[in-house]
Every structure is written in C-alpha cells, then in structure tokens.
C-alpha cells in the first residue's frame, strides 16, 4: 500500500511544470523553496561580509600597536562582525534550511502561511541592508553586539551608530517572529499522514524547538530595544543612572534573550548533523527519544541561565551560585546528544563523504567549545576569563566549529536536492581540511591569548604583553580560513557551471525529500506520501530490496498552489519604513512613521483580501 502511494510519485509521466523566472517572480514568490534560496543567498552574502570584517580585525591585530585601522573603525567592525554573523548569517542560514526542508521533510506542499513566509524574508533583507547601510554614513554600530547600556545612551553615543543598530535589530526581530509563528504552525499542522510527532526527522524536531525559542526570546530583546529607543529619542531614563535608571536592567533583558539566542543558533545545527550522521553511517539515529527530549530540555534550561554572562557584575553570591549551577546542568543534555551521535556512528558503515566530514568536524569542535563553556560557568574562574579572548575562543568554537561546520555539512548534504547539482567531493574535502586547520589555527590560540592577558574588543595591544606571536598565529589562521571559504565559493561556481544532473537520492537518504526529483517541483509531492516510520525512505527501499527508480517530473496539473503575491514585500517595506521613520523623527517629524504605517496598512489589507 505504502509502496503504491509513494510509487505513484515517480511513475506519473507528463510534461514538465513551467516554472516562472525573472526578478518579479522572485519578489512575488511564495514558494517556500525559492524563499529558502533567497534566505540562503542573502545570508551567505552577509557571511562573506562578516568574514571580511573579521579579516580586517585580524589584520589589525596581526601586529602590536598597529595603525591599520583607527580605533573607531575597529569598534565598528567588531560590532558589525558579531551582529552580522549572528543575526544576518547564522540565523538566516538556518532559516534557509527551515524554509527549504521542513516542508519536504514532513511531506507538505508548502508552509502554513506562504505569504507570511515571503513577508518574513523581505523584512529580514531590508533589516540587514539597513544595518549595513550604516557604513555609507560612516556610522556603523560601535558598541559591541550586546550594546551595553549606558554607553549606548545619547550622552556617550551621540551619533547615528546606535540608532542604526537599535532600529535594525527591531526590524530583524519582526522578521524572526513572523517566521517563527509560521514554522511552529507548519510543523504541527502540515505533517503528512502518519508523520507522528515522534516520527519527525530530528532536524524538524530541533527546528521546531528553535521556533519556540524564537517566539519566547525575541519579544524580550524587542522590549529592551524599545526602552533604549525611548531613552534615546524621547528622553526617558530607563538606563540612565543619574535619574535612577539602572544599566544592569539592559544586561538582564539582553541576556534573557541572548542566551536562548545562542541555542537558536546551535539547535538547527544539531538537527542537521542528526540527519547527516545516520545517512552516512547507514544506521538509524541512536536514542531518538533521548535526542528529542535533550533538545527540549536544553531549550528550557536555556531560559534559566542568562546571568552567566554577568558574573563579573557582582550580583551577589546567591545569584552567582544559582546561575552557575543551572548553567552547568546544560552540559548534561548536551552531553547526551554528543554521546548519541557517537552511538549513531558506532557499529555503522561510515561513508566518508564531504557532508560527513563536516558533521564529524562539528562534533569534535563543538565538544571543545562546550567544555570551555563549562569553564566559564564557574563564576570565580570566569572573573579571570570574562571579556578576554578565552571567551572569544569559546564562542567561536561553538558558533563556527558548531553552527558553521554543521551548516556547511547541511549545505553539502542538501545541495543536490536544492539545485539539482552535485558539489565536487574533492574540492569539498580540500575545503574541509582548510577550514579545520584554519579554524583551529585562528581560534585555538585564543584560549591562551585570553588566559595570558588579552582582553577582547581592544583595537590594539602593546608588544610588552608578550601576546604578539599568539595574535600572529590567529591572523595566519584567519587567512587560511579565507582560503577555505574561497574553496567553497569555487566549488559553488564550478557546480553552477556544471550540468544539472544530480540524482534524486545521491546519498541513500532516509527521509522524504530524497523521494522526489532534484530540485523538487513547485508542489514538492505530486501525491502526499504516507509515513509509517522514522526513516520512511529506507523502509521503502528495504521493501523494494534496492534503490528506487529515478522519479519523473510530472505536470502537477490539478494541484492548487498559492498564487504569487506582491503584497508581502510591500508590507515589509511598510514595516521597515515605519521603523526607519522613528529614526528620522528629528528630520521628518512624524511623517516618516505615518507614511510607513500607511504603506503597512495598505499592504496588509490588500494581502488580507487577496484570494490566496
């Protein structure tokens, strides 16, 4: 029975479905796959920008007392590097995978609200461009990615820098929230028949938990930013000590958001490797239920540890103790995940393809980042570590060694499905080794630099500190990383120029997306599959006693898909215009806000009453 249903997918012969092309089709698209590609392309562009910023930082630090960058330029660059990497690179790269693959993995034709999905993307890209536009005014944000009050007050930061940051992040927050509602509902509601919650692929589970985190964490930073905005524009004193305000409130609100945020960055990565490892070990994921629950537990605990970023603020011994212990607790569910991954490859038949390289690299590097995290969790020890390069080492191990390695693994794994083209294995492996070496060369010495006395966010240091050689190693490492990313770019371009001949199932995959052609047709599944197990495709192949025939492209006639729409993009412009209007209050008066609001309302009403 199941065989027939899924079998039907591949046997319906017909004319190819004509896909729309052209710029307008991208602006009005509501196809989750195209939106995914938009997310991916934009995020990768931002990743390159963020990486370039990092390179400049590293060049500046390559010599003591260097004057390559002015102090102000350095401050702008590290702030934008952090902000870009977190909000404009890793989060939207994850969003690319949510968009493209959640519907495919759960056997759906699209997300629950396709137009809302387009809206999210357009808000995101406008926010990202707005943030980066600050460079044109020589006023890029310059107070660090967590912008501690009261440095961000008008008194100490009178320029536009902080305005750009504050407004930009609010715009991005709206994008994240809209997307989170959408995917939360999609996962709950659009699963194919038989796809019970405990049959969902692990990537879907981790993404689902990530949406919950987004929904709960982003409102908090929104409020923190609103209070800052009121301080800066309307003369309130939320963070102004002279009037009784307390800058520490910012820190609490920021990190109530900020810590869940780091799990927002890592959980999708956990999901990706949980897909890759079983496929390339030819063995199901070890301890599926434990993986689900540990993911949920990590997310839940993530709301109770925020003050571990504030140990040096002197919160008092009881608060320190509570937050220290809760933080340490997170190592347990995370350890469970690591062990289950090792359990997955244990006894498997490991196929060392590029995605697997990156997945294994992820485990190895993330463990190191996690262990240094546990070292920070001890407040007395953290009094030495905090705000030094030891912390910088920690978070690059979890963010780059964790998120970026896993996202790269996902890119190699799913590239054929997304674009119908294979990435080159040989270049992929060169990419991997360059990245592994460059990464460790850049960030491993940072542990020592930090312990030996290098504070973070300093635009230079003097030779007397003895830290020159460590910094030089790091700079060389960053150059190797540059080569690694260049190799990846080359691989992409090469695939682009090559034939579009990727098979539907190049890796002997276990999940639904491998049952349909590469790249998928707009409606994904000609017929919605019925699911009976966690690894539906493996089950099917086992029943058949061998690989499945290549699925044919079908006409899709009679399948109703949502129409393209221009209104989401227009509404997004309204949202951005309204918030930018706040920033232009002194120039335009309320008119900017009113114009943006009008555009927003116009967009929303047209959207609401447009037939889907």
């Amino acid at each position: 029975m199941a065989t027939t249903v899924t079998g039907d997918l591949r046997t319906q012969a017909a004319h190819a479905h004509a896909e729309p092309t052209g710029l307008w089709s991208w602006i009005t698209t509501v196809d989750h796959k195209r939106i995914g590609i938009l997310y991916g392309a934009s995020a990768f562009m931002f990743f390159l920008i963020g990486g370039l910023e990092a390179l400049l930082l590293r060049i500046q630090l390559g010599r003591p007392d260097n004057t390559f960058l002015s102090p102000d330029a350095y401050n702008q660059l590290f702030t934008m590097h952090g902000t870009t990497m977190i909000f404009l690179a890793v989060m939207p790269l994850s969003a690319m995978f949510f968009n493209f693959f959640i519907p495919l993995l759960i056997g759906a034709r699209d997300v629950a609200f396709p137009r809302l999905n387009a809206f999210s993307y357009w808000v995101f890209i406008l926010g990202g461009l707005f943030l980066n536009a600050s460079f044109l005014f020589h006023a890029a944000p310059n107070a660090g990615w967590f912008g501690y009050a009261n440095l961000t007050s008008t008194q100490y930061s009178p320029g536009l820098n902080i305005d750009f940051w504050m407004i930009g992040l609010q715009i991005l927050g709206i994008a994240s929230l809209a997307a989170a509602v959408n995917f939360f509902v999609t996962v709950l509601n659009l699963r194919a028949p038989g796809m019970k919650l405990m049959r969902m692929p692990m990537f879907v589970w981790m993404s689902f938990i990530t949406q919950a985190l987004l929904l709960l964490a982003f409102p908090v930073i929104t409020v923190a930013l609103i209070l800052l905005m009121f301080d800066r524009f309307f003369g309130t004193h939320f963070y102004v000590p002279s009037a009784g305000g307390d800058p520490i409130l910012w820190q609490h609100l920021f990190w109530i958001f900020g810590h869940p945020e780091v799990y927002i960055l890592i959980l999708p990565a956990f999901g990706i490797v949980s897909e890759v490892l079983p496929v390339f070990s030819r063995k199901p994921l070890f301890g599926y239920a434990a993986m689900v629950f540990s993911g949920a537990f990590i997310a839940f605990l993530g709301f109770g540890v925020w003050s571990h970023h504030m140990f040096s603020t002197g919160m008092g011994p009881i608060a320190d103790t509570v937050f220290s212990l809760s933080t340490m607790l997170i190592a347990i569910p995370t350890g469970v995940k690591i062990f289950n991954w090792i359990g997955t490859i244990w006894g498997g038949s490991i196929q060392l393809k590029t995605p697997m390289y990156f997945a294994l690299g992820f485990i190895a590097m993330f463990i190191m980042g996690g262990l240094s995290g546990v070292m920070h969790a001890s407040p007395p020890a953290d009094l030495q570590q905090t705000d030094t390069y030891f912390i910088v080492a920690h978070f690059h191990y979890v963010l780059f060694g964790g998120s970026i390695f896993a996202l790269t693994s996902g890119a190699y794994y799913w590239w054929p499905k997304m674009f119908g083209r294979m990435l080159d294995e040989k270049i992929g492996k060169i990419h991997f080794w360059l990245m592994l070496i460059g990464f460790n060369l850049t960030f491993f010495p940072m542990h020592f630099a930090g312990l030996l006395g290098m504070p973070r966010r300093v635009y230079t240091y003097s030779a007397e500190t003895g830290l020159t050689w460590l910094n030089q190693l790091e700079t060389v490492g960053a150059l190797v990383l540059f080569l690694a990313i260049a190799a990846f770019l080359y691989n992409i371009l090469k695939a682009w120029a090559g034939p579009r001949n990727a098979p539907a199932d190049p890796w002997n995959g276990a999940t639904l997306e491998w049952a349909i052609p590469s790249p998928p047709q707009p409606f994904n599944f000609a017929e919605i599959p019925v699911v009976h197990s966690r690894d539906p495709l493996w089950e099917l192949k086992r029943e058949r006693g061998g690989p499945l025939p290549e699925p044919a492209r079908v006409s899709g006639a009679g399948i109703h898909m949502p129409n393209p729409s221009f209104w989401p993009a227009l509404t997004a412009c309204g949202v951005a215009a309204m918030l930018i209007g706040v920033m232009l209050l002194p120039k335009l008066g309320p008119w900017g806000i009113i114009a943006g609001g009008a555009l927003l309302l116009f967009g929303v009403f047209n959207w609401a009453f447009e037939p889907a």
Partner: protein
Amino acid sequence: MADTAHAAHVGAHLETHSETSTGLDSRKLAIWTFIGSECLFFASLIGTYLVYRGRSLVGPFPHEEWVSPAGVHFEPILEIKLVTVGTALLLFSSLFVVLALNGAQRGRRGQLLTWLGMTILCGMFFIGMQVYEFTHFVHKGLTIKTNLFGASFFTLTGFHGTHVTIGVIWLITVFILALRRKLPPEKALNLEIAALYWHFVDVVWVVIFPVVYLMK
C-alpha cells in the same frame, strides 16, 4: 484510493480551514502561538515596571504625595475610580465579543452585530479613558520623561493601549464584513481569531490593573 485524494487535498488549501495533522485550524493555532509570544513581551514590560517600582528620584509618584524641591505640592497621581470604570468596560467587552462570536457561529446576525458593536464601543471607551488619563497626567506634571515611574508607566500602559487600538481596528474590519453579510457561520473563525486576540489584550489588563494601580 479515497485516502490519496484526501491526502492531496491537505496540501491544496494551505490557508483555509482544512484537515491538518492536529485537526486544528492553522490560523487559530497561529494566533495562539502569537499570543504565547506576546506573553513574553508584556512580561518584559511588567518586569521593568516592577523593578523600577519606588525607585523614581523625583515625583510625582503613583500613590504618594510629593513636595518638589521648589515647594510645589503633588497629589498621588493615579485615579483609581476612572481606571476601574475602564477596567470594567474592557472586561465587559470580553463578554460581549464572546456573545458576538456565539451569534456568528449560530448564524444569528442580529446577535453578532449588536454585541460586536458593543465590544467596539467598549474598546473605544477604554482608549478614550486612557487618552484622558494620559493628558491628565501630563497636565499634573507627569510625562514619560519626568521619572522612572512616568517612563515605565507610560510605556507599559501605552503599549497595552496600542494593542487595544489594533484590536479595535481589527474588530471594526470584521464588523464591516459582518454588515456586508460576509461572515456566515462557516467563516465565524475570522471573528474567533480576532476575539482571541481581544481577550488576550483584556487579560493583560487584568494583570496590569492590580499591579500598576492597586498595589501601593
């Protein structure tokens, strides 16, 4: 093959009420998700208000009198009576909208229009109450800049007021639909979703009212 046809149907009407994996309507689930998220939004604002309670360096204060250094005397600024009326109106509006929904679901157009109209009126009165309260405070010398109480009070109640305003606009839209006979029972969900949002705005006030106005 009835089940296959049925399955294809699932994907076909993505934004309409159709069979979903949970059997729940996606839009209703979405508004609940959004409401869950809003809980954290208001929690942050209420948290800020509480953290700054009693920490203003200068008056006027919510519950205490204050004599400024220049010798000007300020009464406690909050007007409990006025706000109690507003609170009651908002609570009743919750009752009204649920009656309107009941009407919509049963196809009783009169019931729907009457109670929906009443809801909108209550909402408008509430907004009017707040506008009056705000201007009154400003005249009495409390602005958003004056002190921490002013800042956190206006921000918290102001954002709540903004939510009420959005709710009113939304309900008016639904009211117009109903007037034009575009809200038949099978589309009552359009009102149900707006009503859920409206109730949420109401329960937020249920928290704000004692926290801001009644606790000294």
